C-alpha cells in the first residue's frame, strides 16, 4: 500500500515489527498543529511525535473497535479498548476521509476481518512540487502552471475571428501611420512655408495634405470600429454559450453547495468583462504600442538628444504600473465580491418575497440590503479612487518630459542650432505619446478586471462533473426496467453516509413504495437511481448494466420523474407537457393531459393549452401544476418512473384525481414512489421501509402490517392517530 511507504525511516526502524498500516495526522494530541504518525504492526499500535520513543503504545489485542469522530473543522480517531475508549489521533478536516478509512481498517483488524482496500479518494492529494492541494479530478497544479495561461486561454476565443481581427489590425497600422503625418506637415509648414514667408502654392498643398490625412483617418477608424463591434459581440456570445454549457454539465451536487442566484451575474457580467478586454483591450494595446514605437522612431530621426529627455519619466511610470497591477486586480475582485453578495441577497429575498411579506420583515430586508450596499459603495470608491489617482499622476510625470524638451529645445532654437518647426513637431509628437501612456493605466484596469473574470469563468468550466459519462457507454435501447441495488452506500459528504449498504432487487414493472421518516434517506435513494449522484460504494444496475456505464442521455430517456416541488418552465402549458419530446403532436399532448386528469381544467382556461405558466404567466394551483407535471412524465413514456410525494399538500378531491392519474401512469412501468400518506401507497407491490439510511423491512402492505413490532406498523399507527386528531379538529 502506498501510504506505508511514506512512513519516515526513523520510525520504521524503531517499530517492533513490519508496519501493516500507517497514517499521518496533522495535529498533535493537544490539538496544536504538528505532525504525528500512527503506525500499526501485527502486535501493536504506536503513536509517534518528534521524539524517538512512541508517545503511546496499545497492544493490538486490546483493541475492539476504532471510530473516527468528526467534529467541526477536524476530528478525533478513537479506539475502543477493553479498558474504555482511547484517543489515538487528532486531525483537521483535510484528513477526515483518511482517518475514516483508518478507523475502518483498524476495526477490521480488531475483528480479524479482511482489511478494506485503499482507494485514492480517501487521501487528499498535494502537488508534488509546491505542496499545495490539488483539486479532485485534476492533475495540473494551479500554482505551478504558467501564469499567462489564463490570458492565452482567453485569447483562444478570438481565434475563429482571426481573419476579421487581422483586417482590423491592418487598418490599425495604417491609421497609426497616417496619424503621424500631420505633425510632420506642420513642421514643413513652419520651416519651409511660414518662416521663409514663401507665398507660393506650397501652403495650399500642405493644408490639403492635412485635410486628406484626417479624412482617411476617420474612414479607417469607422471601419475598424465596426469590425470591433462585430467581433466583440460574437465573442461575447461564444463566451456566454460556453459558460452556460459548463453550468448545465455540472452535477446536482455542485449546485447543492451554492446559491444559484450567483450564476446569473457570472454568465453575464464576467463574459462582458472578458469581451471588453479582448476586443477593445487587445486592439488598444496593439494600436498604442505600435504608435509608441513609431513616434519614437520619428522623434529620434528628428533630434535624438532631445528625445532622450522624453524618455526620462518612462522607468518611473513602468515601475508604478508594475507595483499597482496586483493591487488593482485585488480591488476589482473585492468590488466584484460585494456585487456578488448584493446579488445573492436580492435573489434570496425576492425568491422568498412571500415569507418576507407574511412576516412583515420588509424593513429588515431593506436594512440588510443597505448594509451590503454600503460595502459596495465603499469598494467602488476604493477601486475608482485608485484609478482616478493614477491617471493625473501619470499625466503629470509625463508632462515633466515635455517641460524638459521645451527648455532644452527652446534654448537650441534661440541659439539657432535647431529649427523652430522641428521643436514644434517634437512637442506635438510627445503630446501624442502621452495619450497611449495614459492608456497603460486604463489597460491595467481592463486586463486585471478581465483576468479576474476569466478566473471565475474558467473555474466553472474546469470543475469536473461528479457524475462523469462513461467513455464507451453501453447502448441500452429500450430497457425492461429491472433495478438492482448492490451494497449501495452514499453520503453527500463522503464520511457521513446517508444510505448504508442498501441491497434491493426490483423486477421490471414492479411498483415499490418507499416509506420512512423524513431524513431517512428516501429522496437520496431516488436521486441515486436518476444518477444525480454516484454511489460511494456498491453499484446500481438497470437490466444488469451498471448505471455508470450507461450514457446519461440514454438513462434519462428511460426515467420519468414527478417531483415534490413541481417546477414549470416559462412557456405555455403545451410546451411544458412536451418538454421531453418537443416534437409531440397536439393529439399526443392532449392524450397525455387527459390521462393525467389535466385536460379538462386546461381547456377551461381562457388561453387553453397556450396559457403561459412559469415565472410571469398564469398561476396554476398546486394540484394543477402536479397534473401538468404528470402529463409531462406520461408523454416522456419512461420505463422507470419516480414519484416523490406527488400528492402532498393538495385537498382530497384533487388527491383522488392525481391518484387516478398516477395509477394509469404506473401501469407496466417500474415505479418508485415516496409518499408520507401511507394510504397513497396501497397499490404498491412491495413497500420498502427505510430507517436511518438502512432498509428496515421489505414486504407487502399486509405482510408488514402483520408484524406486531414492525417499523411499518408503527408508522401506520402513528398516522392513524394523527388522522383521528385531525378528524376531531375538523
Amino acid at each position, binding site marked *: 500500500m502506498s501510504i506505508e511507504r511514506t512512513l519516515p525511516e526513523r520510525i520504521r526502524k524503531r517499530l517492533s515489527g513490519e508496519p501493516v498500516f500507517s497514517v499521518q495526522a496533522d*495535529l498533535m*494530541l493537544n*490539538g*496544536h*498543529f*504538528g505532525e504525528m504518525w500512527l503506525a500499526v504492526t501485527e502486535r501493536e499500535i504506536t503513536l509517534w511525535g518528534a521524539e524517538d520513543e512512541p508517545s503511546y503504545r496499545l497492544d493490538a489485542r486490546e483493541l475492539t473497535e476504532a471510530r473516527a*469522530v468528526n*467534529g*467541526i*473543522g*477536524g*476530528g*478525533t480517531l*478513537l*479506539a475502543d*479498548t477493553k*479498558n*474504555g*475508549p*482511547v*484517543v489515538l489521533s*487528532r486531525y*483537521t*478536516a*483535510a484528513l*477526515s476521509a483518511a482517518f475514516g478509512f483508518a478507523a475502518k481498517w483498524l476495526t477490521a483488524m480488531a475483528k480479524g476481518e479482511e482489511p478494506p482496500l485503499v482507494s485514492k479518494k480517501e487521501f*487528499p492529494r498535494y502537488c508534488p512540487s509546491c505542496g*499545495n*492541494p490539488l*483539486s479532485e479530478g485534476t492533475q495540473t497544479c*494551479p*500554482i505551478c*502552471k504558467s*501564469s499567462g*495561461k*489564463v490570458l492565452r486561454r482567453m485569447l483562444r476565443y478570438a481565434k475563429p475571428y482571426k481573419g476579421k481581427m487581422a483586417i482590423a489590425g491592418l487598418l490599425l497600422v495604417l491609421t497609426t501611420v497616417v496619424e503621424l503625418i500631420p505633425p510632420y506637415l506642420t513642421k514643413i509648414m513652419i520651416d519651409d512655408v511660414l518662416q521663409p514667408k514663401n507665398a507660393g502654392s506650397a501652403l495650399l498643398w500642405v493644408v490639403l495634405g492635412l485635410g486628406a490625412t484626417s479624412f482617411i483617418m476617420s474612414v479607417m477608424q469607422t471601419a475598424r470600429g465596426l469590425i470591433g463591434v462585430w467581433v466583440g459581440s460574437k465573442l461575447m456570445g461564444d463566451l456566454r454559450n460556453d459558460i452556460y454549457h459548463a453550468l448545465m454539465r455540472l452535477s446536482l451536487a455542485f449546485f447543492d453547495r*451554492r446559491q444559484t442566484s450567483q450564476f446569473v451575474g457570472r454568465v453575464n457580467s464576467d463574459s462582458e468583462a472578458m469581451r471588453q478586454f479582448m476586443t477593445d483591450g487587445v486592439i488598444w494595446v496593439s494600436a498604442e504600442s505600435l504608435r509608441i514605437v513609431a513616434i519614437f522612431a520619428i522623434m529620434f530621426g528628428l533630434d535624438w538628444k532631445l528625445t532622450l529627455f522624453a524618455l526620462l519619466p518612462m522607468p518611473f511610470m513602468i515601475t508604478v504600473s508594475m507595483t499597482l497591477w*496586483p*493591487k488593482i*486586480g*485585488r*480591488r476589482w*475582485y*473585492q468590488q*466584484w*465580491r460585494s456585487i*456578488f*453578495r448584493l446579488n445573492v441577497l436580492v435573489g434570496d429575498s425576492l425568491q422568498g418575497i412571500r415569507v418576507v411579506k407574511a412576516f412583515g420583515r420588509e424593513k429588515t430586508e431593506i436594512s440588510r440590503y443597505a448594509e451590503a450596499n454600503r460595502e459596495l459603495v465603499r469598494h467602488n470608491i476604493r477601486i475608482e479612487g485608485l484609478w482616478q489617482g493614477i491617471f493625473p499622476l501619470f499625466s503629470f510625470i509625463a508632462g515633466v518630459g515635455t517641460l524638459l524638451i521645451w527648455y532644452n529645445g527652446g534654448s537650441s532654437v534661440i541659439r539657432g542650432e535647431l529649427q523652430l518647426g522641428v521643436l514644434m513637431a517634437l512637442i506635438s509628437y510627445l503630446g501624442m505619446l502621452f495619450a497611449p501612456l495614459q492608456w497603460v493605466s486604463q489597460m491595467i484596469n481592463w486586463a486585471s478586471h478581465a483576468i479576474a473574470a476569466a*478566473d*471565475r469563468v*474558467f*473555474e466553472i468550466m474546469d470543475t469536473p462533473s461528479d457524475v462523469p459519462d462513461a467513455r464507451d457507454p453501453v447502448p441500452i435501447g429500450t430497457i425492461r426496467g429491472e433495478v438492482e441495488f448492490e451494497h449501495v452506500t452514499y453520503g453527500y459528504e463522503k464520511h457521513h453516509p446517508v444510505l448504508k449498504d442498501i441491497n434491493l432487487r426490483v423486477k421490471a414493472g414492479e411498483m415499490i413504495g418507499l416509506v420512512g421518516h423524513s431524513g431517512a434517506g428516501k429522496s437520496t435513494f431516488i436521486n441515486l437511481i436518476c444518477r444525480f449522484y454516484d454511489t460511494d460504494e456498491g453499484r446500481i444496475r438497470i437490466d444488469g448494466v451498471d448505471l455508470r456505464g450507461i450514457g446519461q442521455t440514454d438513462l434519462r430517456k428511460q426515467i420519468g420523474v414527478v417531483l415534490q416541488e413541481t417546477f414549470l418552465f416559462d412557456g405555455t402549458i403545451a410546451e411544458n407537457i412536451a418538454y421531453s419530446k418537443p416534437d409531440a403532436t397536439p393529439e399526443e399532448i392532449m392524450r397525455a393531459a387527459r390521462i393525467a386528469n389535466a385536460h379538462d381544467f386546461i381547456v377551461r382556461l381562457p388561453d387553453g393549452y397556450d396559457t403561459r405558466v412559469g415565472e410571469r404567466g398564469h398561476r396554476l394551483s398546486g394540484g394543477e401544476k402536479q397534473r401538468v407535471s404528470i402529463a409531462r412524465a406520461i408523454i416522456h413514456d419512461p420505463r422507470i418512473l419516480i414519484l416523490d410525494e406527488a400528492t402532498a399538500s393538495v385537498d382530497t378531491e384533487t388527491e383522488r384525481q392525481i391518484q387516478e392519474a398516477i395509477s394509469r401512469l404506473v401501469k407496466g412501468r417500474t415505479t418508485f414512489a415516496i409518499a408520507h400518506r401511507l394510504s397513497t401507497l396501497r397499490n404498491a407491490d412491495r413497500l420498502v421501509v427505510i430507517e436511518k439510511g438502512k432498509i428496515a423491512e421489505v414486504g407487502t402492505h399486509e405482510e408488514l402490517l402483520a408484524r406486531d413490532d414492525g417499523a411499518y406498523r408503527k408508522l401506520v399507527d402513528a398516522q392513524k392517530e394523527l388522522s383521528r386528531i385531525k378528524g376531531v379538529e375538523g
Partner: protein
Amino acid sequence: MQDGGAGQMQDAYEIRIIEPGQAYFSRGPGGVFQGVVDGKSYPEIVVYRVFPFRYASQYISIRDGKGEEIGIIRDIGEMDEESAKELERELGFRYFLPSVTRVDSVKQKSDLWLWELQTTLGPTKLAMRNLHEHMQFPGGGRIILTDVSGRRCEIPDWRKLDSHSRMQLTDVV
C-alpha cells in the same frame, strides 16, 4: 423513561437544562472526555455548541457516545473550575477553529489564494480556490476562513490585528 404518561410526553419536548452542580466533567485515562450528570456516569461524552457563532461558551449540548442529548449547559462559567476547564478543552478539540493572531501574508498565485497565518495553535497555511466562497463575515470584524480541504481558522476581529496583518487584509476584506 419508564414511567410514561402524559407528563413524560411533555418532558420529551422540553429542553433540559443541566444546572451547575449537577454535572462534573473530566478526561478519562485514554484522553476521552467523560463525566457524571445527575449521578449517572458516562464513559464518553460528545459536546456541541448550540450557537457556535453567537455564544461560544454558552448553551452547550451535552450528549452521550451515541449522540442522545443528556442536557444543555447554560454557561460554562457557572460550572466548577475543573469541569469548566475540561469542557472548554473538549470544545476546542471538537470545534477545531484556531484563532488567527497574525496574518503573515495573503498571496494570489494563479487561481489559488494562499494564506500564511500564525494562530493560537501554531503556524499554518490555508489554500482557497476563491475568496467569495471561502471567507465568511458573521458580523463585527469577525472573519471565518475555510480552505479547500475544509480546514477552518477564525479572525476574531481583523481591525484589532497588528498593522502588518491589517495591511495584508486591506484588499481582501
